């Protein structure tokens, strides 16, 4: 009964979306306040209805209602409650409903917080958001109905893939979707501005917080996914350039570019058409990601629920949505010429290079991801593009970006003296050189490239700290820095810390694989590791073999590592649960494998240097986004008021 109620709410939401996406547009064109007022009301109603439907579906998972096809296929009574709940979005139907829910949430947020928007712009933004909602809801109702009933309910469900039964992964999709779908808001802003034919500083100012929110969530979601791969898949790596990982990384790159170009559009009335274009592209890449995951056009480890009809629908949706936006862009774009002029060497110039680099990076990842498909379509045979391509192309592109990133905040708007800016960073240069040379001398003379990577990280970090110091001058000045500018400082420092982590953990990973018998001791990176015993355990829905390892350093006990190998009852699928001891300098990582039949076990030990820096750096970036958003000035909607000018 509750499921039917959810289904009904979803159908009603579709009807609301029709109203929300049409009447306010007519109202905005005619200047009819009554019709325009339907927009916020519609957005609220749509959010309420989709939330009801989502609640009904979650209820079905919690009570294990196996008469619903989606629940029977993806849940099981013996699953812990957290994973029953997470199971709501751990499959195709449910995750599309989550998509729709978050879309409606952003629509409602524009309605609630957009009080200072121009009436026509607000009505149009919400209408476009409603049109996207219409497409997604129709997709759910007609091709992937989560409330479809089975003829006869099975006794128990087929359970969720054990690899996905993990707290990190339970929250990975919602965060990632908050990012992906958040870009729909910037898209709606761009389309609304194109309909109005007006992109001004106020528009750019309104777009920035929405971009920032989506970017923050996307950063958090990607990080969580990478962290999960690191500890759950048990092979010590954290990024595999898989098509689906790329699908989340491309919108991130585009959103990062948008974040920067919107600043230029707001402060300098330049790069306006480009900013609008990026806003469209960022969401187009999000949709492309959805398409790649659901349609099965590419082979990927993540690809789930491949179904050609769904693929056709999403493709159609993608082409219509983005196509319409691009047609509008071709029509209105040429009229959006900005008034701001600037020299090549200036803050604008540096941000332009940033945009160029990020866009080219996103394009080359797109090319690598889709290249196998293109070749196939052209009849040139099938190929697979792997990590070697992406590493060779992506990493060299990031080097000039990081070099310039340190200098850009020191440049003044319009025209800057590059010599003076670089000269002021001489100490950052000295620190970077010392770090790079020190690492090369003391750690690794074989890999000059890795030492260069550490030097780059130090360069960005030192320059970011120096920029903050010159900006605040005194300790009191430091405390008076507006939160928006702290946001930039933290995001840049976070990047530097993450780059150090990525470089070190890729270059200096220590690995030891051996057969050990209980009682034996081995050594890795200065730790003595004693294999104490192996016990069999019973978990809620799995049996496990747990090894215990005593870790000592220089005679003193450090910690106990207890990696597990689990076999889940349903499907008999084995998973590894690595035991990790994170420290500032590196992670000690232990995995236990199969017994060799003679009393020994295959044991894998890793020392991953600075890997925690990567997650910490990403967390600092997210914190920066949050801090920036919490600043009233970032959300102030009256453009270019005095305080905002001072913050700039």
């Amino acid at each position, binding site marked *: 009964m509750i499921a039917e109620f959810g289904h009904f709410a979803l159908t009603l939401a579709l009807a609301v979306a029709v109203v929300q996406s049409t009447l306010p547009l007519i109202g905005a064109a005619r200047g009819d306040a009554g019709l325009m007022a339907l927009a916020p009301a519609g957005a609220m109603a749509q959010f309420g209805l989709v939330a009801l439907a989502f609640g009904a579906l979650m209820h079905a998972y919690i009570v294990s209602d196996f008469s619903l096809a989606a629940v029977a296929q993806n849940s099981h009574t013996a699953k812990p409650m957290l994973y029953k709940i997470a199971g709501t979005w751990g499959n195709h139907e449910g995750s599309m409903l989550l998509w729709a829910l978050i879309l409606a949430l952003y629509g409602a947020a524009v309605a609630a917080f957009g009080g200072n928007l121009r009436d026509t712009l607000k009505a149009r933004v919400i209408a476009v958001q409603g049109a996207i909602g219409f497409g997604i809801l129709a997709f759910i109702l007609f091709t992937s109905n989560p409330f479809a009933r089975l003829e006869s309910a099975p006794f128990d469900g087929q359970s969720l893939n054990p690899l996905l039964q993990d707290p990190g992964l339970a929250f990975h999709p919602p965060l990632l979707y908050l990012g992906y779908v958040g870009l729909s808001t910037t898209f709606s802003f761009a389309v609304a501005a194109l309909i109005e034919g007006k992109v001004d500083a106020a528009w750019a100012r309104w777009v920035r917080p929405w971009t920032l929110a989506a970017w923050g969530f996307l950063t958090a979601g990607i990080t969580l996914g990478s962290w999960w791969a690191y500890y759950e*898949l048990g*092979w010590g790596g954290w990024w*595999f350039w*898989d098509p689906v990982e790329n699908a989340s990384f491309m919108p991130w790159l585009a959103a990062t570019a948008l974040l920067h170009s919107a600043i230029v559009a707001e402060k300098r009335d330049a790069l306006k*058409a480009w900013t609008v*274009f990026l806003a*469209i*592209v960022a969401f*187009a890449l999000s949709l492309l990601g959805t*398409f790649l995951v659901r*349609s*099965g*056009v*590419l*082979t*990927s*480890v993540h690809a789930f629920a491949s179904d*050609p009809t769904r*693929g*056709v629908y999403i*493709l159609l949706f*993608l*082409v219509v949505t*983005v*196509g319409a936006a*691009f*047609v509008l*862009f*071709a029509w209105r*774009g*040429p009229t959006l010429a900005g008034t701001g002029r600037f020299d090549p060497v200036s803050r604008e110039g540096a941000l332009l290079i940033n945009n160029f680099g990020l866009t080219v990076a996103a394009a080359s990842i797109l090319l690598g991801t*889709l290249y*196998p*498909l*293109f070749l*196939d*379509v052209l009849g040139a*045979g*099938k*190929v*697979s593009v*792997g*990590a*070697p391509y992406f590493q060779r192309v992506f990493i060299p592109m990031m080097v000039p970006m990081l070099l310039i990133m340190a200098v850009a905040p020191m440049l003044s708007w319009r025209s800057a003296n590059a010599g003076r800016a670089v000269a002021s960073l001489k100490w950052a240069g000295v620190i970077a050189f010392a770090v790079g040379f020190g690492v090369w001398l003391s750690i690794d003379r074989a890999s000059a490239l890795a030492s260069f990577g550490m030097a780059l990280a130090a360069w960005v970090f030192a320059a970011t700290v120096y920029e903050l110091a010159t900006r605040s001058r005194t300790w009191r000045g430091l405390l008076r820095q507006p939160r928006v500018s702290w946001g930039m400082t933290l995001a840049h420092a976070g990047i530097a810390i993450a780059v150090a982590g990525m470089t070190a953990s890729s270059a200096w990973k220590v*690995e030891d*694989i051996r057969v050990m018998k209980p009682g034996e001791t081995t050594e890795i990176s200065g730790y003595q590791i004693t294999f104490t015993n192996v016990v069999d355990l019973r978990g809620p829905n799995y049996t496990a073999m747990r090894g215990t390892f005593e870790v000592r350093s220089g005679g003193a006990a450090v910690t106990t590592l207890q990696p597990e190998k689990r076999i889940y009852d349903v499907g008999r699928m*084995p998973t590894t649960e690595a035991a990790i001891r994170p420290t500032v300098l590196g992670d000690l990582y232990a995995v236990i494998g199969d017994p060799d039949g003679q009393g020994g076990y*295959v044991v*894998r030990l890793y020392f991953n240097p600075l890997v925690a820096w990567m997650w910490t750096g990403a967390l600092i970036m997210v914190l920066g986004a949050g801090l920036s958003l919490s600043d009233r000035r970032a959300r102030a909607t009256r453009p270019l008021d005095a305080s905002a000018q001072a913050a700039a």
Partner: protein
Amino acid sequence: MRRLLYLLPIALLAALGIAFTVGLGRDPQKLPSVLLGKPAPSFALPSIDGSAGGFASTELKGKVSLINVWASWCPPCRVEHPILMDIAKSGIPIYGINYKDKPEDATRFLANLGNPYVGIGADRDGKVAIDFGVYGYPETFITDRDGIIRYKHVGPINKLDWERTLAPIVQELMRK
């Protein structure tokens, strides 16, 4: 001229749309192989450490075998690996062609996850993979007692693929 620039995104989207539409009709897992029913190309690959005698086509004669093309940098190969270990345990010989891999990475991969292969040839420049018409990784061929290619599977073999498709073919060929 400037106008044309603004039309560019539409053109790109249209191209992408057409490519996807054509691509949707194709299953990336299903590929014809011109080699089906023909003898495996002849080759003699060195082993991963560079020494001679890794894997030569002459070894295929006289038994039903699997030939698996893999690389340590290919995530689906890792996903497939446990299945290969199980198949190897059941006594069916699997030969590996290690595609464009660094020797140290390939060695580490096998040390980490186990070695299911009775012989491995290192295809450093990918020439043998081209002879086999390999498109994607991993890819697995089944050859019969005369060394003739009887089946080709693209992408990782999962449990169902093995039980429903590949294992019956192997058994059928063994019975002949």
